[in-house]
C-alpha cells in the first residue's frame, strides 16, 4: 500500500522559506502570486496489514511536529 503524507505549516506560523520562494517567483516575473507556503511530502510504502491508526501515530510521533505543523494522509491506489 502506498501512502502519501502531506505536512504543512499551521496557519499563522511564519514561513521564511515560503516567503523567499514567493520573492523569487516575483523576481522571475510571475504576477498574481498572493502567498507561498512550503511544506513536505512523504511517500510511504507500507504493508497492507498496517492500520490507519498506526499511520496516524507515525505522523503524530515523527513525521509532523504538532506544535507547528498539520498533516494529511492520502492513500494511493497501487
Amino acid at each position, binding site marked *: 500500500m502506498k501512502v502519501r503524507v502531506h505536512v504543512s505549516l499551521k496557519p499563522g506560523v*511564519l514561513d*521564511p522559506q515560503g516567503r523567499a520562494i514567493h520573492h523569487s517567483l516575483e523576481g522571475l516575473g510571475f504576477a498574481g502570486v498572493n502567498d507561498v507556503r512550503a511544506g513536505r511530502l512523504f511517500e510511504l510504502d507500507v504493508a497492507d496489514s498496517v492500520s490507519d491508526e498506526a499511520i496516524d501515530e507515525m505522523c503524530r510521533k515523527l513525521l509532523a511536529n504538532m506544535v507547528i505543523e498539520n498533516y494529511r494522509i492520502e492513500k494511493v491506489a497501487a
Partner: protein
Amino acid sequence: MAFNSAVITFPGSNCDRDMAVALEKVAGTAPHRVWHGDSELPDGLDFIAVPGGFSYGDYLRCGAIASRSPIMQAVIAAAGRGVPVLGVCNGFQVLTESGLLPGALLRNAGLNFVCREVSLEVGNAQSLFTSAYETGQVIRVPVAHHDGNYFADEATLDRLEGEGRVAFRYAEDVNGSARSIAGVLNDAGNVLGMMPHPERAIEATHGGTDGRGLFESAIRGLVGA
C-alpha cells in the same frame, strides 16, 4: 562532593567536546560522555548536557531524529525525576522535539545562518541555571545557528513570561524569535534550552567569560559553593 555530569553525543554533534571542556573547567571534574545509542545514563547524575551540532544531519527537522534516539528516553525520564538538563543550540531543538520544552525552533527569519556574538538579557536570575547573574543583566555570548527562531502559540508565550520561564532574551535582532526569546525553562525549572552557546564563553581566550555564570549557577545550586 564532586559534580557528576554527562554530555550526550549524537552522530553529527559538534559542540559536545566544547561542552565537556566547559563542564570540566568550571566544575573541576570531567563529565561522562554518553553515546546516543546507549539506553542508560550513568547513576547519580547531577547534570545532563545536550550539546549543539547537526545531529543526524538535521534530517526531517533539526533535532527530530535525535529526540527519538534510545538515550533520549533515559534523559526524558531523568528530567522527570528532577535531574537538571541543559540543551544548547541543536540541544535546545532536541529538547523541544522531545516534548521536554514547549514551542519549536523555526528557520531564522532572515534565512541566513547567524554566527556571531550577541547580547542577551537575563530574563530570570532565580533559576537553577542563572543564579550567578542578575535579572536584567546583559551578557555577551556567541550564537551559531540556522534554525533558532523560537515559536510558540500566544497562550504558551504568555504563560512562559508570566511564570518567569524566559531565562534569556536577545537584546538585539538575531533570528526573529517570538518575544526575542533565546532560552526557556520547563515548568519545574530543571530543564533549560537556549540557542546561544555559553560553553563557548568561559575563558578569556574565548573573547569573553559571560557564559561561565551558567555553569557556576548550576554547580553552586547542586553541590554547594
